[in-house]
């Protein structure tokens, strides 16, 4: 699961945090791997954020690649 969250791992306007939601899925027998993107303060609709976002996503993928590979194999 790849999600954009705040530091408290919350989605916007949803009271439950992500871990709570994932616990329900895990209770049904599913293994989960959470990759939470947590930019500090960005304008989600600004074109100026595109290039930093591309780089941030790519850097995060490079650091998480082994974990994702181990999880999916």
């Amino acid at each position: 699961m790849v999600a954009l969250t705040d530091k408290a791992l919350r989605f916007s306007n949803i009271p439950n945090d992500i871990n709570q939601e994932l616990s329900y899925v895990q209770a049904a027998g599913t293994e989960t791997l959470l990759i939470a993107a947590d930019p500090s303060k960005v304008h989600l609709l600004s074109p100026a954020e595109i290039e930093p976002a591309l780089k941030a996503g790519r850097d995060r993928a490079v650091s998480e690649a082994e974990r994702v590979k181990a999880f999916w194999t």
Partner: protein
Amino acid sequence: MSIKARREISVKRPDKEVNYRSAVLRRDVLLGTAASLLTAGRASTQVESYSTQPEVGTNILPAAPIPATPSLGKGKARALVLGGGGEYFIAWLLGFAHGLHSAGVSYDKADVIVGTSAGAIVGSAAAAGHTGLLRDEIDFLGVFPKLLSDLIPAHESNSSQVARAQPRRRCPRRQHSNDPVDRPRRHGGAQSVGSQYPAYDRRPQPRTLLAEPSVSHDHDRLLHRRTTCPVAMEQYSYLACSLRERLVARRVRADLDWRSAMHGRCHVLNQHPLRPRCRCQARLGGCAHRQSSTLLQHSERY
């Protein structure tokens, strides 16, 4: 049978039919009520069995009990769930896909892809197997960020789209245009491209192309090259409307700023004889074509 008796039968038959229909209706209502009561009772017992869930601050009961019985992912080994987050997260997810692809892990391994908003867009691209294009065919951290940011309408210019070396004057009509699609194209033009890509800024100027016969035959090749440039939307419009004008371009004086004329901007040359007329046309809502036609008359006159 007498006529009177027949009339009585003909009158009584509708009553029987009405009674029969009302009986059927009553039966349906009773059955429906009983079914709804049974369903409600069952639902209430289900809700009670999940009463240990934390309060979420809403009175709306879930459509399905939580945790829901997994059905969509049954028999699927891997699922990819992508959240939403506007254009920022579209870019982030594409960067993430690119990084995973570089590390030998691909989105293609997912059996099920679930996405919300930005995640739905990237997820649909991943499901179609198009995320590999980011690595194979697009210069990911070179041209692609400008391409992606240019697709996003913006109310104000920003550093990603605009890095103007010189401020240029614009026609009043275009300056106050509220077209959200046209706005980023106007803000990010040849100046922006030239400042971001030095190689692009070394291109032959339109004035040179149109005024010198020796290079005017090279127009089609440049047309193709420029229309494939991701951010040069103004160059695209300029070249698209210059097919007729280039026939007479050789007669145009070399000091005319053809690029400004084609883009609907006012001339910046103070001594230019057409400047007052162009201003007048711009004030009246003149477009690039009207200005260029004036310039054509002007070029034939001189």
